[in-house]
């Protein structure tokens, strides 16, 4: 190529590209882009790799057989123009420009015909990156084409029947919490009752009096069971029992039993009789 892309303006007919020594007759349409459309064009690219791929594809260059000279010239033309027009250019584009310039310069150096030279082809890394990028660029397009939720398919749902009610998971309660609650009640009740006069309920002393009274009426002799009123419930029974024990302790009554498990008799103590 003696005269690579010389200009991006419309006036100059563009030179044709050569691929493997063959002229490509298709005119690269994109080079007719007016300069003020460049920024918009730039926005359409994902970066210098994307932009380079675009240039390569548009010129039908073979990626594997990359004509670095031409592609570099093309690339630089755009970059220079965009810089002249004061477009904000991402740093990556300039890095790429530097990389291309370096590759070009290395290619211009006299070549060694040894095997080392092959391995050191300065284009290799760029080509590898371009190919790798192209693979993922294509994969992104393929992914976008996959059927996807919200666009191509939608979840199919049914409402719950009217009689539905969720499963309730109840909180755990420790027994200690109940006791703590009870203590709170008591504490509060005590505070509330500060001015109340405490009144003993079902007093043992009162029951003692009643038993004594009963003994008087029965000539000082009662069967143990007669001291209890079952209708008073457990509390009554207990109070009566306590009263009898108290009377015994105070030696007001005597308890007698003739044989184990036999009837217990309550009688007034002799000294009182």
């Amino acid at each position, binding site marked *: 190529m003696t005269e690579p892309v010389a200009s991006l303006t419309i006036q100059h007919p563009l030179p044709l590209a050569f691929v493997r020594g063959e002229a490509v007759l298709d005119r690269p349409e994109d080079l007719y882009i007016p300069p003020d459309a460049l920024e918009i064009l730039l926005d359409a690219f994902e970066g210098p790799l994307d932009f380079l791929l675009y240039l390569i594809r548009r010129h039908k260059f073979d990626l594997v057989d990359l004509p670095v000279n031409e592609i570099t010239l093309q690339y630089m033309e755009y970059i220079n123009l965009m810089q002249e027009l004061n477009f904000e250019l991402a740093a990556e584009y300039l890095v790429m420009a530097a990389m291309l310039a370096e590759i070009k310069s290395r290619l211009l150096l006299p070549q060694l015909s040894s095997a080392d030279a092959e391995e050191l082809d300065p284009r290799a890394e760029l080509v590898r990156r371009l190919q790798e990028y192209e693979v993922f660029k294509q994969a992104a397009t393929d992914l976008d084409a996959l059927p996807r939720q919200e666009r191509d398919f939608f979840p199919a749902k049914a409402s719950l029947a009217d009689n539905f009610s*969720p499963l*309730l*998971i109840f909180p755990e309660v420790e027994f200690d919490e109940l006791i*703590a*609650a*009870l203590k709170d009640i008591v504490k509060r009740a005590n505070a509330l009752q500060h001015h109340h006069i405490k009144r003993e309920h*079902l007093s043992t002393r009162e029951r003692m009096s009643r038993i004594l009274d009963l003994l008087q009426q029965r000539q000082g002799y009662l069967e143990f069971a007669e001291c209890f009123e079952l209708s*008073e419930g457990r509390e009554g029974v207990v*109070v009566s029992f306590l009263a009898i024990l108290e009377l015994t302790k105070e030696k007001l009554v005597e308890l007698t039993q003739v044989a184990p498990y036999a009837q217990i008799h309550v009688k007034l103590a002799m000294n009182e009789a």
Partner: protein
Amino acid sequence: MARKINDVQLLQLLEAAIFAADKPLSRTELQATVLDDFAVSSRKLTQILQQLQQDYSARGIQLLETASGYRFHTRPEFSDALAKLWPERSPRYSRAVLETLVLIAYRQPITRGEIEEVRGVSVSTQIIRTLTERGWVKVVGYKEVPGRPGLYATTAAFLDYFGLPHLTALPPLTEFQAILSENVEQHVSTVEMTGELH
């Protein structure tokens, strides 16, 4: 404009639309949206919707027409099993709930008014509902006073939960008892008490 659609495709499209929509779809909405491109007569629409209802008559879901339109619903008989997909954790019980419960346990049968008297604050309907929903408390009768208030008692489920064989296995009231018995005198004789008496 009005494109053609055969009955099979129409049924599939309506089926997909009713399943995909977030709410019931009326015939009008169906005509204005998914059927917009097609000329589907009202009679045809009815016929296909009936066919769809028929198709689902023996499945786990059914197509119901309510006031707002067509919608698939799960069958009522699966509600209990499906409930397990949405377990709802209730919050921990408040102190008010626990106090009410413990008063019912020790003082049963007891009216709400009596609980309020002891606690010194009102007992909300919500508290009682929390305890009855849990199955720990129930109304066992009505007190023969004006208003016939319900008498609450604890249940076997309450005893089971706390691992108690019967009410008398509740810890003795000891120091609590005086206060409790004084506030509601008339009940003392009916309560299952194991505490020390005076």
